[in-house]
């Protein structure tokens, strides 16, 4: 029998506070925890770099979720916006724009480009837009190659190492230490990610967020109810692009010397983002975190797996020495994605929610429930259903 609490009571608030505290502690402690087994998780530096990558991917996936999950428009070309964010960051900082100022500027640029790309949404419906985004994802690397003098072409674009934020307090983060500067940058990224997540959460719960969900579920009905469908669609596109731009900035803020290479922003990245999005949970805010963990950490583990000569005593040399072993990761991820869509269409978030409901049941107390008087079971059930923003995959 699960432990039952009512929403809004002190017990419920306590539980939420405790869970948040644990989550926050884990996030803060991550760069100081070195997972055992360097063979699998990489050395301490590599581990922190992977966590930084996870944060950047989480922001990108979150942005994409605002578009796909909440407004129902599919884009597989958002790799272009991550790339745009990264390249514009390096270009700006190389032209002596302060690194932190580059973040809002990169986001603004991506927002503008996103709106322009999303503009056809005023007239183009549904799948035609998907095609446009796909083409965008393919076009972006060719543009980088074409304007070589500007972007470094296929050689990539190096930033100046002196521009990356240095820790202001030497006592906490020793600049001569091998790991400490990495830890500092992890916290910078964590703060940026936290701001992005809070903003997204508030946006989704706002009038505009509800309008987006309405237009996703039934555009005609949304129009009739006064949702300015075209404007919202374009804005959703722009905002998600801005989030991906921020992710690009984060990817650049990760390394001691920022390096944007055209090869890291191919359409594959756009597809990876969608994979993370679906696995984390469509139309959820928190889902971006497990999604990012899957596409960064689990992927890293899988790649490690393909290099091992033996695994649990089984000879794996046939794989480790194979030329096309990189394909194994794609196969595994594709298969995993299919499994998720079939078995757990709500993603990890839905799985966690179901797990939680076995132990703790939260009875929602929305304002309208008070008007009903008491808590008739039907009303409680309706309120519980109302709590979850219906998953368009389910």
């Amino acid at each position, binding site marked *: 029998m699960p432990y039952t609490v009512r929403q809004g009571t002190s017990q419920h608030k306590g539980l939420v506070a405790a869970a948040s505290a644990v989550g926050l502690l884990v996030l803060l402690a991550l760069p100081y925890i070195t997972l055992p087994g360097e063979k699998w998780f990489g050395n301490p530096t590599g581990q922190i770099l992977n966590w930084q990558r996870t944060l950047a991917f989480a922001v990108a996936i979150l942005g994409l979720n605002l578009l796909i999950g909440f407004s129902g428009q599919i884009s597989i070309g958002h790799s272009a916006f991550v790339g745009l964010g990264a390249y514009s960051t390096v270009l700006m900082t190389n032209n002596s724009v302060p690194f932190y100022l580059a973040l809002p500027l990169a986001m603004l640029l991506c927002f503008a480009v996103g709106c322009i790309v999303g503009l056809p949404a005023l007239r183009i419906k549904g799948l035609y837009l998907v095609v446009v985004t796909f083409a965008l994802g393919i076009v972006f690397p*060719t543009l980088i190659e074409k304007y070589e003098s500007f972007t470094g072409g296929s050689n990539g674009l190096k930033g100046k190492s002196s521009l990356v934020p240095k820790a202001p307090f030497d006592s906490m983060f020793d600049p001569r230490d091998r790991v400490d500067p990495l830890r500092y940058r992890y916290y910078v990224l964590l703060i940026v990610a936290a701001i992005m997540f809070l903003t997204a959460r508030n946006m989704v719960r706002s009038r505009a967020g509800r309008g987006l969900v309405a237009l996703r579920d039934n555009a005609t009905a949304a129009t009739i109810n006064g949702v300015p469908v075209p404007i919202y669609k374009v804005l959703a596109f722009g905002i998600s692009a801005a989030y991906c731009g921020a992710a690009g900035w984060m990817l650049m803020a990760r390394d001691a010397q920022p390096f944007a290479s055209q090869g890291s922003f191919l359409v594959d990245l756009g597809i990876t983002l969608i994979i993370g999005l679906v696995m984390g949970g469509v139309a959820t805010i928190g889902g971006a975190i497990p999604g990012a963990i899957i596409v960064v950490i689990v992927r890293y583990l899988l790649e490690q797996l393909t290099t091992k000569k033996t695994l649990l005593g089984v000879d794996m040399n046939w794989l480790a020495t194979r*030329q*096309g072993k990189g394909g194994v990761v794609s*196969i595994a991820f*594709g298969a995993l994605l299919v499994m998720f869509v079939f078995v757990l269409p709500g993603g990890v978030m839905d799985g966690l929610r179901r797990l939680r409901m076995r132990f703790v049941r939260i009875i929602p107390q929305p304002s309208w429930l008070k008007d009903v008087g008491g808590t008739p079971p039907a009303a409680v059930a309706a309120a519980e259903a109302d709590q979850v923003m219906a998953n368009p995959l389910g």
Partner: protein
Amino acid sequence: MQARAEEIGTRGLMITGGVVVVLSLIFILMDGPGLFWKRFLDGLGNGFVYGAVALALVLIYKATGIINFAQGSLAMFFTFIAWVLSNEQSWPVWLAIVTAMAASALSAAAIERVLIRPFDPSNHLPITIITIALLSVIDGLALYIWFADPKGFPSPFPSTKGDVVTIFGARVFYAQIGIWSTVLITTVLLSLLLNRTRVGLAFRAVSSNIESSRLVGVHVGRTLQFGWALAAAIGTLAGCLFLSSGTTQLQPLFMSQILVFAFASATIGGLDSLVGAVVGGLLVGQLQTMIGGYVKFIGSDLVLATTLVLIILVLLVRPNGLFGSKRVERV
């Protein structure tokens, strides 16, 4: 609920024709008719291939209402199968290609049955995501089996240096003519299949209205499966044809650029029009060579970007493509 617009494509044809004639005149004035004719013939080969892949995409779109992102990967995989059959088993090339087409049709039918049919056809998001997952799996599989290094694909057409015919002063390889005629024949056969047979009638019924066709006794699932099989076979044929011209070699990613141009063709033509797919393909093929040849500051690097702009422009003027039918929604 949809209603087909009355005059299908007549306006589309007129607009396209007008733009094409004006552009051609400008180009002819720039470099003279000889060079224009040569470039035109060059663009025809690619155009037909794009048209063929676009046909496959449109078939799936008409059947399932989604864009099959795995279309290119499927075609790539079975082009590899054709390569294995002809190179390693030394089958005749034509037989290898036909066998690969049949195999791709069977696999696509199986994929449709196992991965696509369980979903509600009117909910597009899960099906689209399944096709993206398929893309990942198939690309990975091809990379694992055949590695990334390019391989030469044997041409089914006579393709030595001397196999050239001169048409009005421009030299054309037999392989080119082979590609044009194969795609044209495929298109004619496809339209006969869709317009003159029972299964084609069922397919058109399902693509027009799933519920009503179910009520009049059409087996919707099997018909959609038929559409997937047909699309996969056409895609495989297009992949093999593209490589037959000898300009590109076979490697796991060779279809991705073709797929973009095919997307562009299908979009410009209107996602639900088979005629539009072929016309769109020819237009995009011409655009590619003409832009590369005449608009020097864009050059061949930015053809993709120009195509993207073109898609957006066409869609802004005609949101359903040049030949697509308007969908009227009933609430």
